[in-house]
C-alpha cells in the first residue's frame, strides 16, 4: 500500500460517511476522481482492489468456501470432538 492509500484507508475507517460516499460510486474512474478531488493521490489499481470487495459473497461462493475436501467442491463437516 502506498502512503497515500494508507492515509485514505485510515480516514475511511474513521469516517463512515466517507466510506459510504465511496461505496456509492460503482465506477473505478469516478472513484479515482473522487479520491483525487479529496486530496488522496492514490493509484487506480489500489482502488480497484478496494472496490472489488464491496459486495457479498454469492451463495455459490459460500457453498464452495470451505475448500472442497471431497473433491466435488464440498467439504465434510468437521469432526464433532466436543466432550
Amino acid at each position, binding site marked *: *500500500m502506498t502512503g497515500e492509500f494508507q492515509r485514505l*484507508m485510515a480516514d*475511511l*475507517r474513521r469516517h*463512515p460517511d466517507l*466510506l459510504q460516499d465511496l*461505496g456509492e460510486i460503482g465506477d473505478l474512474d469516478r472513484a479515482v476522481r473522487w479520491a483525487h478531488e479529496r486530496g488522496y493521490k492514490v493509484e487506480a489499481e489500489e482502488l480497484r*482492489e*478496494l472496490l*472489488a*470487495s*464491496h*459486495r*457479498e*459473497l454469492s*451463495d455459490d*461462493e*459460500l*457453498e464452495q*468456501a*470451505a*475448500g472442497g*475436501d471431497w473433491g466435488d467442491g*464440498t*467439504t*465434510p*463437516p*468437521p*469432526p*464433532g*470432538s*466436543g*466432550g
Partner: protein
Amino acid sequence: MPPSCGDWLSVLQRHLRPPLFKPEGTERLRRLARGLPGDLLTVLELRLGNSGGPIDLAFRLTGPEEALRIADVLPASQARRFLSAWAEPDTALSSIHSAWVEFDLDRELREVPSPVVCAKLTSDAPLPWLTGTLFPAMHGKPLTPAQERIVRLCHESLPSSAYVLYAFSLLSRGADTLRLEIFGLSPTTILAYLDRVAPTAVSWVKGPAALFQGVERVHLSLDIGEEILPRIGIEGSFSRLPNWEPGWRKLFGRLIDQGLCRPEERDAALAWRGSDTFWTAPAAWPVEAIGPVGFCFRKLSHVKVVCRPDRRLEAKLYLMLGYLP
C-alpha cells in the same frame, strides 16, 4: 504480521451475540483466538438448548506447513509431537489427508492448551495402518489389546456404504480414549451397525437416531476405551445452505420438539451465513496485515446430538468461518 483468528472474530463481532453467544464464553474464545492463526478454516462449537457455557474452537490443517504453524504455538504435548511428525516428508503419516485440532474452552486458560487432534482418512485407509501407525502416533503409545480389538470390530463391521472418516485421540482430555467417526450410515443402518459393535447402545440411541431421518450427511462417533464407552454422538448436515435446503429447518424443528434447541437458537443458526469485508467492518478489518481485500465468510456446518444412557441428550451446533482472499 498476518491476521489472527482473534482478528476475524473482531470482524464478526456484530454476529457474536445472544442467543448463541454469551459474553463470558465469547470473551474466553477471543482471548485464545488472538494467539492462533487466522488463515485456517475455523469452526466454533456451541451448546444448544440452554445456551451459554463454553465455545470451543477448531481448525482444519490441510498439510505440513499448517501443522507446523499450529505445533509451534502448542505446549509440549503429544498433539504437538503428532503434528510435527505428520509434517515430516515421506513418512507413514504422509497419507493423512487433513487434520483438525480442537481447543476445549471449558475452563479459564493462562496459555494455549493442548488440543484434541483428529485425522481425516480416505475411504480406503487400511485397518493395519489405522491401528498400528496412525492411532499410536496420535496417542503416543500403542493401542491396548482391547482397543485394537474394538477398532478392528468397528472397522470390519462397517457396511460397504460406510467408512471411518475421522480418527481422534482424546488424550488431551486426560482420558486414554480414542474416537472413530463413521460416515455413510443412515439413521436406520446406525442401529443395525450398533447391534453388531455395541448392542446395548441400540435401546438408548434409537430415539436420537430418528432425529436425523432425511439428513443428507450423517456421522456416527464412537468412543473407545477398554470397551465402547456409553457416549455416542450423531451428527448431521446438508451440503447446501439453509436457504436452499429445507432439511436444515426440519432437523432443527425435531431438536426443538425434543427440547434440545430453542426456536431463537434455530433462527440464529440458520442465519449464520454470509460474508464481511472491509466495507462492513472497517474499524476491525486487519488492513495493516492484508489490506482492504477479501471476505470473512460464515456458514452453518452441522449439528450433533450426544447420547448417554444415564443422561439427558445434549445438542451442539457447529459454525464455520474463514477468510477468502
